[in-house]
């Protein structure tokens, strides 16, 4: 080995041993030198002094020796680390405050990043995820993005698309699964037999579907999702081969899926297409009908096929549809087809929000950095003597800067560790929140990628806030040593730096506070929205009769009429109703086109659209929807009577001020007509933030729909209705499952939970920012007061009143707050625009939010200064002046 290398290696290995050797060597030298002078007749003490003086600045020489070893950076680092930890332990208050501040900042970022990593960044856990696309049809002109694909179209795509090696379908149906105990209504994914092979999902138990499962007369089979298997069967591995009754047929469980995210819906179990009665019906009509647009389509690209080519092929096939079937794909639809990325679609609603949150936590971290930089700067003032001493003993400026940066890094890494704890304890909560926006939350985890992120953020943070004190470490040695630690020549520069940091903190906090303020103002307005019905004391439940037992409208109608009769007889029930849509329960509006008798329309597409709902006789009474004109439904509006309807105010506007009661509308090109018998108030059925749309209610006994939702208004506690509904249903048919039993207040609360949580989350971050900034202001003002003690003493001696001193100090603080506010407002306006789609009845420049934030900040700022200001007024002029 090369001697230089061995030397280095040895040095690296025994750096500290060599330090000890060097000490011994130098000690020996001094002793010999001292002895020499003693032999020359000097007195021992003087001899030693002379020997030491001969040697010169000892530490500097030792340092030079260390540097010749070539590995001194590592030793410096260990030395700096030891020294850093030691000094930090000596000022635990500063260290703790810095670590907590940084920890919260880093922790918040870590938590959000772990969510972003698990939701947006990790590839889908499907083997073929990288080759998978969605084939989506859209009709933008009638506002129907992704309206689905028909069986006919699916077959055309399969036949005509060359870039794909597999094209599979999915649609969701809800069926009754009968097993031990209560019947269960299960969300069922109906899929092509090669669906899981195409996606690249292998069952963890049993097998995937095979082509023969789809054969005519093949035994019906089911595959359970992981979540359903866990919650309903406790992960029982003996589930394979068990038989359940479904749609009046035995179904055998053949497999269990791994826990993977599902698109477009999370379902409980899967069945092959042949087992779905609706799908079978659509199949029988394939020859004569290109509707209904029932399924979602996944395409697996051939290996090496270009996604762009595939997209072009899809567009071409769709263009041919338009050319070949102009009556189905009318120009007024704007029909076309495109490919879409599964991961993007799966996480589309979460993406923007997560990025906003990451931006928010990023800003919080910046504030934390500025705050710790300020703390460190304040500490530097007290450390001037220490640093000057080290400088006098031979530490170069580079060495000092390195030392200060190491200290910052120690703090930042400790903060990062605290942050990890914080993230670890909050990530579950965050995951629950994000579940509202995407079903892909199963892979959120604090994994090695997240750890690397945290480490990186910590190091960058340390460098960021460590640079300020390091820059300010230029020291006038003589002055610092002389002045007894009361501040040095560049104090003024440091004050400017501190003020700038505070102003920046205030500005960034203002951005966050305005954002949170806007969301809160918007939430308040949303909560005060009158939904158009009275949700108090009303219970709702989903009650679907098994459609093999209740195959048509007549059978279900009989079921519901019997149910209503029993419900209304029960004690505590004021009224009961059956409908097909509970307001605010997340349904999408229907878009049936109608015509008013006596009016002409240029084309069928020029006719207005309406959302049609089913209402039993006491529906409006039960929900507390006011009847404005005409009459409500009665027992006489039955299947053999004249068709009638009740419309809402939004629909009544189509009559241009004329009373619509008594006029007729048609939904089938004038073949049949129904009479409007009443007008009721508008209901915010599809969202408190959405303007009411035209709605028409048909009586239960005339509606062709399966209704499925029971509503009960109670005299007292609505929870009593749970058993009333269950008993009533099961006394008619014990095989009918009762699902989603919820009060209307609960449904409204669920609807509001998302904006409430979003506002809460942003408010927590903004509050954190405010807190950190306010402590920063207090710290800087307090420090400035303690440095100006003599000045204040002098002022008071010269006749300044307590009030004027108080005003001076608070004024200094408010100047900082005011400058920050002005700067922050500009930033806030930009941030608010990002939030626009989350605001209801609130513009991004809502003066209310801005005013609240300004007042709150000025008040908080003034309060933050009061403590230090009070101390300034209690300075005893004589003591202060004598101290000089």
């Amino acid at each position, binding site marked *: 080995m090369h001697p*230089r290398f061995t030397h280095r290696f040895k040095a690296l290995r025994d750096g500290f041993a060599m330090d000890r050797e060097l000490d*011994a060597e130098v000690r*020996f*030298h001094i002793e010999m030198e001292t002895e*020499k002078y003693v032999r020359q007749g000097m007195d021992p003490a003087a001899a030693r002094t002379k020997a030491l003086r*001969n040697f010169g600045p000892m530490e500097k*020489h030792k340092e*030079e*020796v260390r540097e010749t070893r*070539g590995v001194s950076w590592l030793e410096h680092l260990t030395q700096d680390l030891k020294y850093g930890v030691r000094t930090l332990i000596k000022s635990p208050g500063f260290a703790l405050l810095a670590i907590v501040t940084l920890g919260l900042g880093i922790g918040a970022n870590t938590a959000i990043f772990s969510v972003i990593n698990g939701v947006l960044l990790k590839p889908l856990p499907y083997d073929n995820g990288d080759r998978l696309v969605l084939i989506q049809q859209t009709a933008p002109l009638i506002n129907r993005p992704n309206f689905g694909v028909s069986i006919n179209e699916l077959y055309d795509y399969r036949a005509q698309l060359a870039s794909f090696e597999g094209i599979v379908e999915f649609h969701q149906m809800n069926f009754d699964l009968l097993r031990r105990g209560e019947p269960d209504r299960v969300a069922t994914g109906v899929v092509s037999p090669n669906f899981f092979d195409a996606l690249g999902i292998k069952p963890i138990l049993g097998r995937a579907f095979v082509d023969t499962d789809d054969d005519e007369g093949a035994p019906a089979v089911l595959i359970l999702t992981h979540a359903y298997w866990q919650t309903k069967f406790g992960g029982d591995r003996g589930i394979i081969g068990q038989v359940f009754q479904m749609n009046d047929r035995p179904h055998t469980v053949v497999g269990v899926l791994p826990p993977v995210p599902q698109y477009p819906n999370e379902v409980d179990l899967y069945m092959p297409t042949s087992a779905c009665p609706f799908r079978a019906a659509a199949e029988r009509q394939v020859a004569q009908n290109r509707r209904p647009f029932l399924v979602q389509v996944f395409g697996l690209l051939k290996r090496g096929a270009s996604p762009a080519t595939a997209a072009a092929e899809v567009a071409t096939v769709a263009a041919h549809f338009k050319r070949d079937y102009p009556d189905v794909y009318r120009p007024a639809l704007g029909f076309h087809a495109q490919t879409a990325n599964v991961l993007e679609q799966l996480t589309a609603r979460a993406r923007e929000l997560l990025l906003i949150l990451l931006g928010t936590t990023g800003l919080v971290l910046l504030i934390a950095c500025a705050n710790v930089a300020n703390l460190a700067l304040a500490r530097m003032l007290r450390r001037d003597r220490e640093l000057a001493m080290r400088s006098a003993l031979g530490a170069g400026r580079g060495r000092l800067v390195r030392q200060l940066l190491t200290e910052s890094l120690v703090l930042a890494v400790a903060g990062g560790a605290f942050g990890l704890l914080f993230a670890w304890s909050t990530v579950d909560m965050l995951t629950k929140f994000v579940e509202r926006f995407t079903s892909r939350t199963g892979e959120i985890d604090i994994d090695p990628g997240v750890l690397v992120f945290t480490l990186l953020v910590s190091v960058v943070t340390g460098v960021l806030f460590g640079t300020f004190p390091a820059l300010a470490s230029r020291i006038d040695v003589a002055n610092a040593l002389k002045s007894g630690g009361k501040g040095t020549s560049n104090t003024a520069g440091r004050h400017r730096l501190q003020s700038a940091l505070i102003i920046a903190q205030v500005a960034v906090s203002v951005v966050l506070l305005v954002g949170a303020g806007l969301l809160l103002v918007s939430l308040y307005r949303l909560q005060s929205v009158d939904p158009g019905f009275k949700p108090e004391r009303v219970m709702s439940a989903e009650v679907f009769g098994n459609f093999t037992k209740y195959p048509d409208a007549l059978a279900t109608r009989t079921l519901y009429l019997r149910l209503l009769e029993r419900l209304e007889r029960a004690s505590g029930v004021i009224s009961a109703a059956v409908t097909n849509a509970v307001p605010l329960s997340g349904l999408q509006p229907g878009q049936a086109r109608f015509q008013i008798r006596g009016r002409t329309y240029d084309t069928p597409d020029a006719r207005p659209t309406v959302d049609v709902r089913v209402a039993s006789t006491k529906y409006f009474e039960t929900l507390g929807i006011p009847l404005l004109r005409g009459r409500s439904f009665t027992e006489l509006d039955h299947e053999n009577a004249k068709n009638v309807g009740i419309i809402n105010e939004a629909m009544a506007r189509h009559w241009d001020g004329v009373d619509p009661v008594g006029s007729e509308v048609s939904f089938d090109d004038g073949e049949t007509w129904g009479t409007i018998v009443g007008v009721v108030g508008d209901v915010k059925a599809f969202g408190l933030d959405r303007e009411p749309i035209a709605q028409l209610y048909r009586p239960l006994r005339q509606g062709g729909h399966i209704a499925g939702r029971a509503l009960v208004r109670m005299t007292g506690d609505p929870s009593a209705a749970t058993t009333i509904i269950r008993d009533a249903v099961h006394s008619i048919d014990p095989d009918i499952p009762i699902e989603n039993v919820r009060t209307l207040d609960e449904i409204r609360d669920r609807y509001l939970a998302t904006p409430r949580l979003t506002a809460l989350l942003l408010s927590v971050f903004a509050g954190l920012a405010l807190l950190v900034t306010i402590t920063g202001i207090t710290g800087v003002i307090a420090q400035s007061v303690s440095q100006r003690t003599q000045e204040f003493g002098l002022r008071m001696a010269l006749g300044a009143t307590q009030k004027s001193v108080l005003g001076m100090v608070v004024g200094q603080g408010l100047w900082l707050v005011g400058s920050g506010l002005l700067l922050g407002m500009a930033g806030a306006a930009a941030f608010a625009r990002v939030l626009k789609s989350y605001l209801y009845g609130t513009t991004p420049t809502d003066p209310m939010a801005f005013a609240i934030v300004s007042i709150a900040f000025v008040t908080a700022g003034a309060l933050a200064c009061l403590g230090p200001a009070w101390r300034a007024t209690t300075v005893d002029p004589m003591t202060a002046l004598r101290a000089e």
Partner: protein
Amino acid sequence: MSSRSRLDLLQGTLDLLILKTLALGAMHGWGIAQRIQQMSEDVLRVNQGSLYPALHRLEAAGWIVAEWGASENNRQAKFYRLTKTGQRQLREETELWEQMAGAVARVLKAETI
């Protein structure tokens, strides 16, 4: 002793003198400084602060090696010893020095016009 008579040593020159001193036998740091002073009849005076960095530099270059041993007054001291490459280096540097000293001397002796 006037400060004039104590010449500070040029970098490189010190290295050469250390090597030369050690060519006479192993020696510890203080001894090297003393010996250079004695041999130069007190004209050359080693800045003690630069002695140890120089020793470590030479050690790092592999020209000398150090080991602990007992000193003349029976105390533990670090003794430096010339290596084979150190001997070669000494020869080369001595040659170089003599060339340079000769050249400088010639320049200084030149008659002024």
